[in-house]
């Protein structure tokens, strides 16, 4: 088989096999990559670090994704939970869609042991409320206790120590709302929470949605944005450098090493295909 034929008609199964190796090998050799922190990631960190710590308001994380987006968004979620619990910032977790509740529960259960965090005192899992983003977010602006009468475990939300001690009644006591989403849920938070109640909004999105949030970052309707696995690795790096996180396994940082290997492979494939095409054209 001639080189041009190999370059232009490589069997897709060989491509998949090479991609599999590119992803697996960095994991087997414990390779970790911590990319340089981009400004949009740093803005989210700084807002939680400085503004929320100073004004004493709560951090609300809305887990608006389903298991399909877990590899990209769960590392962000766990890093944000770590940051809030370390800084003793009142943390509320909720979901605009039912599937998000289980993911939020699993992440907070996994992380809370590192910080001896207690349910009801340090964090609250509000759960999911029906009605869709518009109804729920507008309702939260009026009263959190009316939208979520009971939390995930069936406790009356208004009676939980964290809610009482920090006088958390509605979105006015929320210093930052972060929507983690694989779709456009961050848009609902901007439209209803930011516009209606001046709540600062940030978001964490999958790579596919990444470019869509830039107009809102540029207009400062979002205080910051996390995009894909890379931002997750950036956040893990900041927490590690600051000494906020003691976990040895950082999924996004480990995944970014595989990501780099896979991208190098893509570069090679694209170059091969183009070289093959040029050779074919010249022969004609």
């Amino acid at each position, binding site marked *: 088989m001639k080189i041009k034929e190999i370059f232009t008609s490589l069997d*897709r*199964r060989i491509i*998949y096999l090479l*991609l*599999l190796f590119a*992803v*697996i090998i960095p*994991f*087997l050799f*414990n390779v970790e990559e911590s990319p340089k922190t981009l400004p949009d990631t740093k803005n989210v960190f700084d807002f939680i670090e400085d503004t929320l710590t100073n004004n004493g308001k709560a951090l609300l994380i809305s887990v608006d994704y389903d298991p*399909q987006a*877990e*590899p*990209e968004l769960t590392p962000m979620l766990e890093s944000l939970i770590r940051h809030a619990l370390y800084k003793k910032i009142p943390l509320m977790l909720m979901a605009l869609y*039912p*599937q998000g509740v289980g993911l939020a529960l699993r992440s907070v259960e996994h992380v809370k042991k590192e910080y001896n965090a207690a349910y009801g005192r340090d964090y609250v899992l509000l*759960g*999911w409320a*029906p009605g869709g983003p*518009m109804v729920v977010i*507008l309702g939260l602006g009026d009263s959190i206790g009316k939208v979520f009468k009971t939390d995930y475990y069936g406790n009356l939300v208004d009676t939980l120590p964290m809610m009482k001690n920090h006088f958390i009644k509605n979105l006015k006591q929320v210093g930052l709302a972060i929507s983690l989403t694989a779709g456009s849920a961050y*848009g609902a938070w*901007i*439209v*209803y929470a*930011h*516009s*209606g109640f001046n709540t600062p909004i940030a978001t964490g999105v*999958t*790579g*596919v949605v*990444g*470019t869509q949030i830039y*107009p809102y970052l*540029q*207009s*400062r*309707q979002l205080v910051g944005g996390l*995009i*894909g*696995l*890379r931002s997750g690795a950036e956040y893990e790096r900041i927490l590690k450098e600051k000494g906020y996180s003691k976990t040895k*396994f950082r*999924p996004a940082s*480990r*995944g970014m090493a*595989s*990501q780099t290997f*896979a*991208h190098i492979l*893509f570069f090679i494939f694209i170059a091969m295909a183009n070289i093959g095409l040029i050779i074919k054209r010249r022969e004609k």
Partner: protein
Amino acid sequence: MSAQIIHTIWIWIAAFFTLAIFSFLYKDNPFYRIAEHIFVGVSAAYGLIITYYNAFLPYVYTPLIKGDFIVIIPVLIGLLFFARFIPKISWLVRIPIVVAMGWGAGVGLPRTFQQNIFEQLKASILTVNSFPNVWQGIFNIIMFAGIILTLSYFFFSRKENNKVFNTTSKIGTIFIMVSFGATFGYTVMARVSLLIGRILFLLRDWLGIIH
């Protein structure tokens, strides 16, 4: 059966279905089709059960048991969606649609305009504040030019021989291509991330090779 054994069984089931789905990359086969059908069925059933426990029980059943009969009104309006299946009264489906659309548009439109159009327009306008330093100023000018040039590409009612529009729309396509390139790059990263997620599950949770 202990919780650990149950957990292990579920891990093995998840690993089986992961490998069954990946087997499609070689070629279509019965394992892939079994996994695909079970996934669709489980997803539908999961959605139904979640809605039953999180919506029907707390917001319909419990209030009715407690004597809060006002919930009957929205429930009846919602049930009219099923009128679609009865030809004689199928027109009744318009009522819940009208209620949802009217309420949604009334509440949502002003805020959507405010945040998605007016705020974006404000952020696009060049003012003295757009030039805090040289680089930021250059960036803002490029962004402003990008908006105008890209918009000119979508001005379809112009004449074909309009040289000004032909030039600006050609430059506009460069901005559009840059945007597509960035989107494609992010999409590749997202798709590889999905593979990484599954590989991580197989190596860590199933095989226990990495810790």
